[in-house]
């Protein structure tokens, strides 16, 4: 079904063509008639029957399905019978073409109605759902990767789960799901949906226990069988990745105090639902929001600041938060606590505390075992890019590798040139990690040089690790916006020269401790008047094609343009506070 054309490509003969044309002509007159009827809002039984015929002939006709829905909602006949007939019609259409949105939509609609109709009659409702499940199974026999069918099945299963919540005689739906997934994977493991169903079953949903607990080692062994059988298949690697690295819940990596304010950082983006500091409730504000989150929706973030008027003076803090996180499409809820001494970002003693967050021992054992298996595979299949990628991911999760050990990324992009940019990004991120770690050994007052890495964006999780940096050089990257940079409240000097940042210069005024900033050679513009922090002494805006006249720009930008003056040197143009 995949990688195959939809229709057979046998050219019909002239006679057949003529015949078909004749048939199409008849059908078209019927369609035209029906569309007229709908236009005139005619709702009668004859129209119902005509749509029946027309849709049997040509089911890929959303308008007619819509008309049929209108007819059905307006009929006075007993709906249950009609809907049962409807199910038969749809089933017939589905057996002819399984990849038509309108048919699946209509089926879902019919089930919704029919479910309402039979409400109260347990046996009927159950048999309805059972038939539906059976149909899905049959269609999955035909095409095990039909996502329409998978979606529909998911919907039916959800109905069954809600219905059977309080029913002690309920079938074991989780076991049914698990069997289906296992069977289909055994049949052909190149099946993203079946692996995905497995991950869904093993994840806790909305605070509940996971539906099924599988033995992790057995699962890993099983997926390894698939990997060894066909290492070029993405679907097995996705499940492998989920098993090894994907199912984690958010944790607090570290807490830090900067100028009397408390900051808290998580391992992944999450939303705080309730928070308390030292036993009393408080409010946190997002400072490192998830990528692509707009200013309006900043509720998902990696880094948070405790909102208070008082300075934090305690040596140790105790934070308790309830968080929501989002993994593989499921909302997860968990509790996180931090108890201990936050990192003092105002001191000059070097600290690698932000990098000291350890994986649980159990998990790191598993990762090491998997690394060994992948090494083995790479001995047989040195050119398998999925294996190279998985190895790299596992290595990065276990340790912070030296920059020189990252040449696998070049190898991957030469093996897979279509995704060269992806590998370049991943590499840039890995290098960033290493540089940040080296820098953290030296101390906060040292400059952090992240220039010329080819970074397209600064990941919020990466920004969380370097929170506390005072002098940051990001020149000659490919940054497209300021992004999480604006959350790095500790910055005193920032240099983002020669990037591709678009946006307004006034955005950087959010950094309240900033003294010097180099914005030259970007695509910034000036439009919003802002009040620069009192500390800001120097701002370089040269080389931005949207800022032609720097004097005008200063007028537009500054509340008090008079206190600024331009310093024009060779090829550079600085604005300095007088």
């Amino acid at each position, binding site marked *: 079904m*995949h*990688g195959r054309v939809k229709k057979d490509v046998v050219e019909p*003969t002239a006679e*057949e063509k003529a*015949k*078909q044309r*004749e*048939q199409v002509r*008849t*059908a078209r007159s*019927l369609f035209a008639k029906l569309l007229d009827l709908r236009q005139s809002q005619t709702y009668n*039984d*004859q129209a*119902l*029957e005509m749509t*029946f*015929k027309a849709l*049997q*002939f040509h089911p890929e006709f959303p308008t007619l399905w819509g008309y049929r829905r209108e007819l059905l909602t307006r009929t006075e006949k007993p709906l249950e*019978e*009609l809907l049962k*007939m409807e199910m*038969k019609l749809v089933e*017939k259409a589905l057996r002819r073409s399984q990849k038509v949105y309108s048919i699946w939509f209509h089926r879902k609609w019919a089930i919704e109605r029919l479910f309402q109709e039979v409400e109260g009659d347990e046996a009927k409702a159950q048999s309805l759902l059972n038939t539906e499940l059976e149909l899905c199974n049959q269609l999955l026999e035909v095409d095990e990767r039909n996502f329409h069918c998978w979606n529909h099945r998911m919907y039916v299963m959800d109905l069954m789960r809600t219905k059977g919540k309080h029913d002690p005689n309920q079938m074991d739906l989780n076991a049914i799901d698990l069997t289906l997934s296992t069977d289909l994977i*055994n*049949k*052909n*493991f*190149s099946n993203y949906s079946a692996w995905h169903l497995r991950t869904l079953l093993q994840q806790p949903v909305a605070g509940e226990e996971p539906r099924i607990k599988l033995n992790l080692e057995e699962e890993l062994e099983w997926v*390894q*069988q*698939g990997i*060894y*059988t*066909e*290492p*070029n*298949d*993405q679907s097995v690697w996705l499940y492998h990745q989920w098993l090894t690295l994907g199912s984690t819940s958010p944790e607090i990596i570290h807490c830090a105090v900067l100028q009397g304010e408390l900051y808290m950082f998580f391992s992944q983006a999450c939303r705080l639902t309730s928070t308390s500091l030292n036993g009393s409730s408080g409010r946190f504000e997002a400072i490192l929001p998830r990528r692509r989150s707009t200013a309006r929706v900043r509720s998902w973030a990696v880094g948070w600041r405790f909102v208070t008027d008082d300075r934090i003076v305690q040596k140790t803090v105790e934070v308790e938060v309830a968080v929501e996180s989002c993994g593989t499409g499921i909302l997860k809820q968990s509790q996180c606590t931090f108890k201990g001494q936050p990192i003092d970002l105002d001191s000059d003693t070097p600290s690698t505390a932000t990098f000291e967050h350890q994986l649980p021992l159990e998990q790191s054992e598993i990762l090491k075992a998997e690394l060994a298996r992948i090494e*083995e*595979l790479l001995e*047989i*299949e040195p050119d398998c890019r999925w294996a190279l990628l998985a190895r790299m991911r596992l290595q990065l999760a276990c340790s912070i590798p030296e920059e020189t050990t990252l040449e696998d990324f070049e190898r991957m992009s030469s*093996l*897979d*040139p*279509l*995704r060269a940019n992806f590998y370049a990004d991943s590499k840039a991120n890995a290098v960033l990690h290493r540089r940040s770690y080296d820098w953290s050994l030296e101390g906060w007052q040292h400059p952090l040089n992240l220039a010329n890495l080819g970074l397209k964006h600064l990941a919020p999780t990466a920004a969380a690790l370097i929170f506390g940096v005072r002098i940051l050089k990001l020149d000659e990257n490919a940054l497209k916006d300021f992004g999480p940079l604006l959350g790095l409240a500790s910055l005193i000097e920032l240099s983002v020269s020669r990037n591709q940042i678009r946006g307004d210069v006034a955005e950087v005024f959010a950094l309240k401790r900033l003294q010097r900033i180099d914005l030259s050679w970007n695509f910034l513009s000036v439009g919003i008047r802002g009040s620069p922090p009192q500390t800001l002494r120097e701002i370089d805006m040269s080389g931005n094609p949207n800022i032609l006249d720097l004097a005008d720009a200063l007028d537009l930008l500054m509340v008090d343009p008079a206190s600024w003056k331009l310093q024009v040197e060779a090829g550079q143009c600085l604005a300095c506070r007088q």
Partner: protein
Amino acid sequence: MALLTDDECQADVVVLGTGLTESIVAAAVARSGRRVLHLDAAETYGGAGRSLPLREYIAWAGDARDARMPGDGVQAGGDLRSLPRHGWQRLWEPFAPRRTPETAEMPEETREQTEVPEGQRAFALSPERTECYAERSFEWDPFQQMNGIRRKKNELLRNPSAFSLDLSPRLLYGRSEHVDVLIESGVARYLEFQGLKFTRVLTSEGLISVPLTKSEIFQDAHLSKAEKRMLMRFITSIQPYVSSLAFQSAAQLGVDQAAKIKGPSDQSALGMELDGSWRAFLQQQNLSERLQDFITYSICLWDWAPTEAFPQLSCREALERLGAFISSLGLYGRGTSMPLLFPMYGIGEVSQGYTRLCAVHRGVYALRTRATHLLAQEEEDGTMQLSGLVTCRGEQIKASRLVAACGELLQDQVPSQSSSQHCRRMTVLLSSPPLGEEGVSLCVVPPQSLDPPLQNVVQVLQLDFSSGACPHGYFLAHLSQASISDPGPLPFADLDRVLEELLKRSPKTACIFRCRYLQRPRDVATRWDVSTRTGGFMERCLHEERLAVVSDPPAVPQLLAVQEVHDARRIFGSFFGAESAFLPKPQHVAEEEMSGSLEELEHFNQQMQAQEAQEAQEPPVASLVQEDAEQ
């Protein structure tokens, strides 16, 4: 007393013998519009590749006592014999006007004097008829382990036509020249096939299933992960030559441009010498010993152990076999992973399918009819030209071309060469499936699996009720082993050991009968003595392409029907030129195939028009649904 009418005695081509190849030729000739007369000296269709009901099988195998039945001498079709004697006799009579016992028992001598028409000469054929099966033996309860063997025997003999026992069991590749011909000619419509369910290898660790597809390799519990990888890798590296969707991942199907496989343009990229040894090539590929055995014996279905005396598998041959196997995978049937098809009721049924096609195109059939003389017309230049033959009933048949099975024309018994390739066969009836699971399936036993090693690899074909070859609840096993050396005193020792080994796995299995024989195809090159008068004449006819001789079913490959269609096509081409169409698609088949999908639409069209005509009245909706469900 003549059986054939004068009109029927005029033919373009006479075919002697109803074996598979002969039947295909006959069908092709009749299909091309020529008159065919098809004769067989035997009682049944199928020639050397026939499938017999139990009584006939026993009689053939040598135990005549058990085959005797009421009213012996008149052998009718199977079912009638189950009736009491007076019953079937009465039933039989109206059907048998053309054949009377007298003709069968008419002494040969009377016809020796058959007058030969003016200007023609007769060349006598030997009255003896030989078969390619030797050293046949049949035993009930060979291991003396059954208590009620007498009762069981009677029970089985009561319904002997529940059996259809192949003398030379054959399988077809799902995608092969033969299957193409079957489908194209329409003969496939007369036949049913069973896909082989699984294949096993008997190793020292037990019966192991051979993973054939990606999914089976994934699920296999015997292979190590590295072995799985090596096997898959081997298969994908071999892929450019033998393509099959079954092994390909989405990436390699061309969805992913970067990973699209660019097949090497010549075999040298594989590092393969086409004429080199396949074993050596497999070793190069880092395949483990047992994977090498799996590929050679159970995928390539190679018949010979790597001993010096035996033929060696070349890479060319192996690639062809691998290609035939892999390209047939997953073609027919759900849940059957093997790419081989077993014709239901045996291979004899396939030749009967062709005879049916021939009969549909005015071919005339006569069984129990032997040719006693060949007739020749003296040409003006003094040479003798084949002009027809004389049957055992004295009918003179006019035909300018003759196709004959090896056994039909054999004049002088050619001494059997002890060094020629032959096949040791053993057929047993068992009370439970010898391969552990029901279903038509195959098992190969590489020589090293048993200790001491076997002389050569053994193939076991398991048949059950679903194949139509035996009654419900019984299982047939055809064991075979190719050999080249002198059979020696115990030719079936290896087969017995394999059977014993298989039976060990299920101690309750009873062996109800065992039949053993050697299949020794005759050498077509030395079929007759050219120094005799008849021999010299036939040699000349052969040379002038007026006579074609069909060889016996080959001993190797033991279980595959690969040569027949090829031979038939060659014979047909030699008679009528290579450009004449060989079994083209019949008109009605072509028409039916064309309509099919459009039928529904047409039907709907008519309905629509009828509906428009009586638009005023409308039937209640519910009845429409009813109608629909019935359709």
